[in-house]
């Protein structure tokens, strides 16, 4: 088969999975490698950009010395963190503590692998892709809870409590908005959601309220300011990460970028048309561009927002997010579906 320019065709999963078992296994491995490379480069660049942008907002230069424009600073940090001693505190409940953070990262990357990146670059086209992704996403705060709770530190304990409290305020709106997306697209397939956006308009335009609610709730879901209550530096030192040693902290940093990537790709798939765009560039470019813009927006919010208090987050969730997401659901039904 001729090598084609579109990167999606190299990992043309329908082509590979159509063959025998060997073909399928090779296909899956190639797919994992390609997506991991995309995700690592994207996450790394966004991590660098976050440091640079926030530095600009604060009259600083950010990293400048390691590599060109400080591009290698994050890599240097990662190497430093990974080369340090791994200490598990005496108070910690060892098995849970050792498992929680790696599992968090693994689950996040698992979701990253489940997402579709172009018409050909996707793992499976399950009819219930949206459901399975949000099932796993709702597991993440639970693992944050166990990570904080098992570390035996009181600050981490408070952070774990907060993580459950805050869960009540944003998990529901996320699911309601996802339900209205599914309703609009007529199914839970991510592929179907994008093709339905190709047929009509982007869902971000069709239901702006849902878009905004989803974006805010995702900020809370993935611990971005102003909802970074679990990791509130000025109150809880580092929240659930207070007692973790350097290698675990490296995992946590990686997790941060994984979640950023995950969130921004999800927003671009559900509301910004995913890989749709002018055809002079490959679909993969468009989805990454949209995710990148969403990430920049998240970073700008971090540079400017004050942190909310726990009770206020609950109040905000119940008084604003949930009613708005319900209104969005009803309006979607009345205007587009009925």
């Amino acid at each position, binding site marked *: 088969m001729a090598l084609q320019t579109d990167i999606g065709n190299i990992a043309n999963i329908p082509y590979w999975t159509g063959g025998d078992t060997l073909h399928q296994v090779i296909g899956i491995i190639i797919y994992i490698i390609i997506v991991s490379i995309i995700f690592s480069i994207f996450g790394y660049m966004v991590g660098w950009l976050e440091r640079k942008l926030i530095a600009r907002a604060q009259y600083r230069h950010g990293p400048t010395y390691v590599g060109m424009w400080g591009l290698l600073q994050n890599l240097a940090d990662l190497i430093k963190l990974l080369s340090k001693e791994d200490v598990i505190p005496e108070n910690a409940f060892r098995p849970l503590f050792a498992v929680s953070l790696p599992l968090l990262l693994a689950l996040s990357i698992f979701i990253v692998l489940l997402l579709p990146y172009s018409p050909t670059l996707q793992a499976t086209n399950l009819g219930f892709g949206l459901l399975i992704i949000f099932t796993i996403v709702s597991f993440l705060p639970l693992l944050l809870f166990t990570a904080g709770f098992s570390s035996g530190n009181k600050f981490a304990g*408070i952070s774990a409590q907060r993580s459950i409290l805050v869960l009540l305020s944003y998990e529901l709106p996320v699911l309601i908005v996802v339900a209205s997306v599914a309703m609009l697209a007529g199914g839970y397939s991510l592929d179907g959601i994008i093709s339905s956006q190709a047929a009509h308009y982007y869902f971000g335009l069709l239901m702006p309220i849902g878009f905004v609610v989803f974006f805010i709730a995702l900020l809370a879901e993935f611990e971005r300011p*102003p909802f970074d209550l679990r990791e509130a*530096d000025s*109150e809880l030192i580092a929240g659930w990460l207070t007692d973790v040693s350097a290698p675990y902290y490296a995992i946590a940093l990686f997790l941060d970028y994984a979640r950023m990537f995950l969130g921004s790709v999800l927003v671009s798939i559900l509301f910004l048309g995913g890989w749709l765009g002018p055809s002079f560039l490959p679909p993969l470019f468009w989805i990454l561009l949209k995710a990148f813009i969403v990430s920049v927006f998240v970073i700008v919010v971090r540079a400017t*927002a*004050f*942190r*909310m208090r726990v009770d206020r987050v609950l109040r905000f969730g119940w008084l604003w997010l949930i009613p708005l997401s319900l209104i969005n659901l009803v309006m979607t039904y009345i205007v587009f579906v009925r």
Partner: protein
Amino acid sequence: MNITRINVGPVHPSTHGVIRLVVDLDGDTIVNVEPHIGFLHRGVEKLAETRMYMQIPPYTEKLDYVAPMSYDEAYVATVEAAMGIEPSEPAKYARTILLELQRIASHLLFLGTLCNDIGQMFTVFMWAFKDRDMVLDLLQEAAGSRMFYVNMRLGGLNQDLPPSFAEHALSLMDYMEKRVFEYEKYIEKNPIFNERMKGVGVLSRDKAKELGVTGPVLRASGLNYDVRKANPYYVYDKFHFNSKTLQDGDNYSRYKVRMLEMQESIRIVKAAVRAMPEGSAKGMPVKLRSPVPPNRISIVNRELPRGECLMYMVADPQKPYRLSIRSPNFINLAAIGSLARGARFADLFAILGSLDIIMGCVDR
């Protein structure tokens, strides 16, 4: 009721120095806060008894490392009172200008750290520090160094203000006026900021009186007491300025009072620079043997950026017999218990930030 006891500090991101707070929490609500102090105790009062008069300013300065010159001046004024020295007219103006610049620098730091404490990590902080740096540049021009000045001498300063000082001060004050306006515009319209600040940590008028808090903390609770007005020193009585008072006594008022005070300080600096008389502001050079103080006991009170400081000195011929310092921060810190009780855990740091304590001054 299930009480969790948490130890906040002495190593914690937002304790403003080395203070240890033992916090009892019921869920997320604070039941009790107990401050433990003394980590920065250097025995300045005792040290002063073993040093000659003009060897002491470097110690008193380090009490409040955010506004060192104000403590420097308070101490030198005490010695002047003991020796019966009256600063020259230009020296009075120059000291007024420098003290007000120091107040602006101190309040800018307050603004930055407060925003850090309520979770705006480092953006406002860096902005405020940039502006504070410009004020420090000006102070460096006048005194010769940026952080610890030791520029007060008996009867004046270590050197005259440089000829370019007036021009630089006026242009910086114009810039600062704009910046304070910008800060207010950006910060006060933020709903999360208002939510975190308004109605939180209310210090009632009576409680404020009872605790003896001073400075912006007192004026935010509705009591108009400002040493610059009540007992004017230098040339404060020659200029028109208001000591701003707000009624609510919450975090927001404590923040707002300081912002208003910065504007007043800018006005004072501008007026004083314009009215500065000709002549030398230089004081006496530091000599091994200072003049013998005729007054045995001298008391001086000053309005520092953080409240009223009172220095009490019993004089011996060459060195103080006893120097006693009423630290405004120590007394303001005492309010933390009654302010934080019933507040949320996250509010504890907003309250601590709004009290704006400096541990060097608390521990002495």
